[in-house]
Structures are given as C-alpha cells and as structure tokens.
C-alpha cells in the first residue's frame, strides 16, 4: 500500500525548498548587489530591473530579501547545530549514566528554560555590544535544554529494549552503546525537533535583528529590514510588508515540515493532534 504523504509535510517541504533554494541562489547570484546604494534611485517603483522596487537608499528590495534568506538560514543552521549537538550530547550522557548525573542535567535544563533567547541576547549585548554572533550564541543556548530533554526522554526508552540489554551483557560500554545503538534509533526524534527549532530560530533571529541585537547594518536580515521600514511607514509602507512575508513563509515552512515529519515517524499519534 502506498501511503499518502501528510499534507503538512508536503506544504512545509515546498515552502522550505523555496526558502532554502533562494538562500542558496543568493550565494552565487542576486539581481543586484544587495548593499549597493543609489540615492538618486530611492523608492523606485517595481519594474523589470527592480522587481519589487528599491528602498530609501536605492537598494534593490529583491536582492536584500534574498540576502536576508541566506542570513536567516545560516543563523538558524549554526545556532541549531551548536545548541543541538551540545544538547544531544548532554541528553545521551544523562540517559547513559543516570543517577545524579541525569538529575543534574535535567535541573540544568530546567534552569535554561528560565532564560528566553531575548534575555540571554540582552545580557550578551550589554556586555559585548550587539552583534549577529551574540544573537547566534543566544539562540544556540536556548536550544541546549530543549534538545537535552528530548534526547534523554527518547534515549531512556531505547535503553529499556532487549537488544540494548544484550549489548550491555556482551560487555559494550555505555559510550559505545550510546553511539552505536541509542543515537541511530533516536535520530528521527532529533531531526523532527531540529526542524521545529529551525522555525523557532528564524523567528528569534528576526526579532533580535529587529531590536538591533542581531545583524548590524548594512548586513541584510529580514528583521533588520523591518526595523528600517518601520521609520518609513508613512512614506513606503510596502517595505514593511515583504520581509515579514518572507519570515512567515520560512517559519511556516519549517513548522509544517516538522509536524509532517513527526506525523510520519509516529503514525500512532497522528489521529488527534
């Protein structure tokens, strides 16, 4: 029987492909240089040269949005990879060792939940000055407890299975079991979580850059483009629309994709969510 792919997976996949494709394309090509200014050409209307027109400094909007996609994707990728790998490692360790180590890791994770990314970014900005790097660090940091919890929960289930007991009886050490048996078996759970956290990271980066704690001018970031557009709301309201739409498409895409992946990996839970 061929099973139909879940709708959310399909829609999410298409949106993600669109965003990731755009980001990849911007590495090699954008219609114009996204940072090149031409004051004489400011607020140009959409045309065949400037598909969505230009901004207050005469920069091409499409090129900026494409560069913004690249920025969003790289920030999300780095932050989720960093936070995710630390979190997964902690979760695996907690699960493998158990006892007070497990308790300790989980209490630390609880502590992490007290700090939303914004608070962490605020502290870093106050100490080191605002920068995109600090924003990435802050987003990576909040990912650690999320992944630690998910990993430990999933790993604990695998540890109870027969073949893991067999491996233990065969004298394999806990580290090797975690690497060879546990990790491959919880991969699906981690990938689902990573996809969802990708969406969260995109939102967080946009908010931090909007507030001036992330990407600094002239770097293009959807959030930063919006903060510039806000001062021009009476002059050029259209500039406040496009970057927001991009954020929604990207976040929606990764969110739906994550939900869809989860539905596919846990068909039991599919019915009533």
């Amino acid at each position, binding site marked *: 029987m061929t099973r139909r792919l879940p709708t959310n997976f399909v829609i999410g996949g298409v949106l993600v492909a669109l965003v990731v494709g755009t980001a990849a394309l911007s590495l090699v090509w954008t219609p114009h240089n996204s940072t090149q200014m031409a004051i004489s050409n400011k607020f140009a209307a959409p045309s065949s040269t400037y598909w969505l027109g230009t901004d207050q400094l005469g920069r091409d909007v499409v090129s900026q949005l494409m560069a913004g996609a690249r920025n969003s994707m790289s920030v999300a990728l780095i932050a989720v990879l960093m936070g995710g790998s630390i979190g997964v490692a902690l979760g695996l360790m907690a699960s493998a060792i158990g006892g007070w180590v497990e308790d300790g890791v989980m209490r630390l994770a609880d502590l992490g939940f*007290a700090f939303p990314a914004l608070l962490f970014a605020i*502290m870093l900005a106050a100490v080191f000055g605002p920068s995109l790097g600090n924003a990435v660090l802050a987003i990576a940091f909040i990912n650690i407890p999320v992944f630690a919890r998910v990993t430990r929960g999933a790993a604990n289930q695998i540890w109870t299975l027969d073949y893991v007991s067999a491996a233990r009886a065969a004298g394999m050490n806990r580290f090797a079991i975690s690497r060879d048996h546990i990790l491959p078996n919880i991969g699906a759970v981690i990938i689902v979580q990573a996809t969802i956290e990708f969406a969260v990271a995109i939102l967080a980066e946009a908010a931090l850059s909007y507030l001036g704690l992330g990407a600094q001018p002239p770097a293009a970031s959807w959030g930063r483009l919006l903060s510039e557009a806000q001062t021009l709301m009476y002059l050029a309201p259209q500039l406040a629309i496009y970057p927001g739409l991009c954020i929604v498409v990207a976040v929606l895409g990764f969110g739906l994709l994550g939900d869809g992946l989860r539905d596919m990996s846990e068909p039991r839970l599919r019915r009533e969510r």
Partner: protein
Amino acid sequence: MGYFIFRRTVGFILTLLAVSVVVFAVMNVLPGDPALTILGMDATEDALAALREQLGLNEPLLTRYVNWVWNALQGDFGISHSFRVPVADLIVERLLMTVSLAVAGMVVTLILALGLGIGAAAQHRKFGDWGVMFLSQLGIAVPAFWLSMLLVLLFAVNLRWLPPGGFAGWSDPMAAIRSLILPTIALAVVQSAVLARVTRSAALEVMRQDFVRTARASGLSRRRVLWRHVLPNAMVPIVTIVGMQFASLVTGTIVIENVFYLPGLGRLIFQSISNRDLPTVQALVMLFAAIVVTANFVVDLLYVVIDPRLKARA
C-alpha cells in the same frame, strides 16, 4: 500535600538562586572588567578606578554576589549608571506600564485561546475547526513585531483610528487605553495561537470520556457541557502551557514595548544596553527571569487546586 508544596517551594528557591548565579556570572565575569565595559576603551585610569570603587568591584567576586543578592532581597538593585538614580526607582516608575500590558495581553490571550480552542473542539472536523487550526498555524509563524507593524499600518497610518505608538501617561485614562489597544492585540494574537491549539486537543481528549456523555444525558446543553464539564477537565494541560508561555509573554512584552515606544521595563532595558548601564540591565534580566520561574512555580501549585485527585496523591 504539605510535603508536595514544601518540595516545590524548595525547588523554586533553588532555581531562583541558580538563575541569579547565571545572571551575575554573565554580567560580571564575562566582561572581565565591568568598569571598562561601562566607560569604554578611552576612559581615563582615574575614572575607571573611581567607578570600580563605586560599584564595589574591588571586593572578591563571592562577596559582590552575596551583597547583590542580599541587597536585591531588600529592594536595592544598586545605582543606575546612566540615570544616576537607584535602579529600584527606575523599575517602580515603569512597572505599571509593563504589568498593564502583560496582564491585558494575558487576559485577551486566555479569552481568545479558550474561546477558539473550545469552539474548534465543538466543531471537530467541520469548517470552524479547520478555520481555527489554519489561523493558529499562521499565528504561530507571524512575528509579534511584524504583526504590530501591520496593525499600525492599518489602524494608525491608514484608518487613523488609534495612535501608532507612544504613551502619554495615565492622567488621561481614555488616551492611555487607546494607546494600549494595538500593543495588547499584537501580544495576544501570537500567544493565543499556540494556546488555542493546546486547548482544542485537550478538549477533544476530554470529550471522549464517559462523564461527558453522562452530562449530555442529564439534558445539559452542549454549551454548558463544554464550558462547565469539558473545559475544567482540560485545564491541566492548558495551565501547563500557560506557565510555559510566561517566557514568551515576557519576551513579547519587551519586544512590543519597543515597537510601540511604550515607556516600560522593556524600553528601559534597551536604553540601558545603549548606555552600557550594566547594573540596570542585570537587575532587569534577573527580574524577568524571576517572573518566568515564579510563573512555573505557581502553575505547579495550581495543578493541585484544579485536580482533587492530585491533592490526594501529592
């Protein structure tokens, strides 16, 4: 019961202490020399020495931490470097603004989310259900600050019904409320998207249970069954999410204040970042994190109030 509350209270206090250690460490150890951070590279050695003396930086770290916590417990958060008044005074002046926004946002969130979530569950698999699910999926993806901008664009720039931002104080209550309408909506819409989904699935879970059938067999209207029987039983997961949402409520409030130029704690924290006002930032971050931790503690206690079965076990 008593033991349960005792254990949770101890856990709560320990978490608060741990949070304070993290905040203190990030703000005092990471920068190396806070005085240098505050005054900048080109400060004179005399000025630096004076500031170190004033901030007590010459004491050992542990002493500084204990002093900070001890003073904070008595409502003394030190002196703001940029405003040159006690940080506590700054906070008190702006607290009302922030609390009003957060409370209004929370109330509207609860009304929206419970209404939509229960409504969707009642309409399960029909048009209303799909509508709510679609809107909430969208709501989760929309950044609060962009929604704010769209609201301003529509209601302030185009229709001119409401002010685009700013706050003239409480002396004219009507104007104050008008300034708070858009921020409240922006805060609530995004929050309620998540909560409406949780409410819906929790309600669907409860509706499968036998006692709902009993209630209907007693001739109660669907509406009464939903609100008086289903909703209370769905409250445990709902309250859990509300507790977890306090983190995003705090974040949302800070962001929204900056979008609408509302003079609250969220604005203050950003002014303090620009001014390199470390004591103020430190106090505010600690305050916000404490609110998040406290909210989760209160949720733990609420479970027992909601569900009499837990009371027996706890």
